[in-house]
């Protein structure tokens, strides 16, 4: 389980996260929603070690991970799929996936091969295009690739940043479904950041609403979805 207490991250004089406290329950999907600039991406980037917080604590499986390097946090079981289909365009599809399991290639040799096959079963289109450069893929395929890269590190917590960004509704549905299935069947814990609040709340167990770096609401997803006052005030629909 991931527990965050009083987390503050700032860039110069701009405070992006202002004393956030929340948690991600084991084997559940927790979604963090909010308008542009609410601090959602900064929250994930601080958890994965890409940004260092000015104060507060992040506890993962009983240990503090504040101040640890991103590469060590991945090895501790937290995989981050950053915003914007983060793949390396100049590498092939298969190289992009393999990149995520490089650090396990000696210790878990057979599992690394198995994890690659699993990704191909999960996203058959990636197998068809395995020799192609990632830069030639469509937006949806790139998102699938970024998720695969994260999954082959065998995470226990998956941080997903706006997987729906710039994708057609049908593709969004497919990707969200897939994450949902993974969580329910393998017990993976998911922290899903979304601007598309309706979709995210539809699949999540729990919802956290951020506004200007602060937690405004932290409730079961269904309850949050039904609250029209909050929705109108913070999400504008």
């Amino acid at each position: 389980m991931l527990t965050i207490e009083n987390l503050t991250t700032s860039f110069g004089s701009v405070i992006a996260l202002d004393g956030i406290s929340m948690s991600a329950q084991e084997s559940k999907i927790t979604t963090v929603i909010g308008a542009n600039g609410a601090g959602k991406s900064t929250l994930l980037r601080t958890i994965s070690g890409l940004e260092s917080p000015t104060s507060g604590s992040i506890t993962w499986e009983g240990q503090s991970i504040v101040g640890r390097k991103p590469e060590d946090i991945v090895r501790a079981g937290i995989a981050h799929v950053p915003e914007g289909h983060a793949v390396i365009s100049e590498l092939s599809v298969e190289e992009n996936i393999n990149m995520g399991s490089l650090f396990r290639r000696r210790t878990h040799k057979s599992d690394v091969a198995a994890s690659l096959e699993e990704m191909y079963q999960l996203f058959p289109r990636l197998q068809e295009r395995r020799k192609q450069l990632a830069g030639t893929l469509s937006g949806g395929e790139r998102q699938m690739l970024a998720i695969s890269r994260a999954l082959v590190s065998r995470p226990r917590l998956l941080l997903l940043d706006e997987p729906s960004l710039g994708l057609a509704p049908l593709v969004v549905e497919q990707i969200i479904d897939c994450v949902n299935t993974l969580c329910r069947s393998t017990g993976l814990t998911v922290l899903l950041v979304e601007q598309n609040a309706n979709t995210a709340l539809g699949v999540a167990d729990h919802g956290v609403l951020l506004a200007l770096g602060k937690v405004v609401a932290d409730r079961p997803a269904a309850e949050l979805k039904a609250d029209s006052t909050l929705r109108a005030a913070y999400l504008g629909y």
Partner: protein
Amino acid sequence: MDTFLAALFSGTSRGAIYALVALGLVIVWRGAGVVNFAQMGQAMFSTYIASTLIQNGNPYWVGFFVALFAGAALGALLDILVMRPLSNKKKTELLSSESMRAAIPVIASLGILGVLQALAGIIWAAEERGFPAPAAQEGFTVAGSVMPFTSFDVFVISIVLATLTMTTIFFKKTGVGLAMRATALNQEVARLSGIRTNFTRTLSWAISGAASSLAGLLITPTSNLSPNTLDLVLIIGFTAAVVGGLDSPAGAVLGGFILGLVISFVTFYLSPEDVFLSILAVLLIVLIVKPRGILGGKDSRRV
């Protein structure tokens, strides 16, 4: 016909060495995002180490391998002691412009070059000394006539081709090679994949250091050794890398052979004084026709 063959052979042999220098530059450029002007300073330094060992009675090959190892160690050391602290300071607000920040390590590498040359002058004195070749430098004799091609040329070309093949396989087929390419292309995604990017960067510096030391060992038998002799080699090697496309190892090799041949043919058919003009001409023509170099990718930086 004899002149043509002589120019062809000497150009190929020289070109192989320039290819090696260019490859060293490309590896650090791709692996760490730095154009390393100190590279031939490092090579000069490790060649001096080899020279001292050989002069003290050690076999050639002891000097050869110690120099390769010293080149790798020196490269790694420069990254750990100079480049890594510099890149950690990158985010200081004093230097907010992106191009200024990119310039810092390049300027640092020029500083390192100066320091290495001065140190070599202090330790080994600045006069030129010879450096032995591991193979005969007299031309082969075929049917009574001496060919313009020596066993040393064969040695140089084969060792360079072997190195190029090995680096290509290393980058394409091994996990560490993939980690190094990923680090060079997108450090953030690499780190999020669990790759220890500090380590892979240092490894780039070490491999490049060994490659340029090899170039130093192969070129000094024909050019002599002094703290500054390799400067010219660096300039030609850098031009070769730019001509081939700074981000492409294959391009670096191609560029090296092109420049080696151009320089050799100009020397044989025109005059040695026209060599610099011809290098400049090649550079200009390539940059006008293909600003990213012959094999440069579309995402590579324009020179």
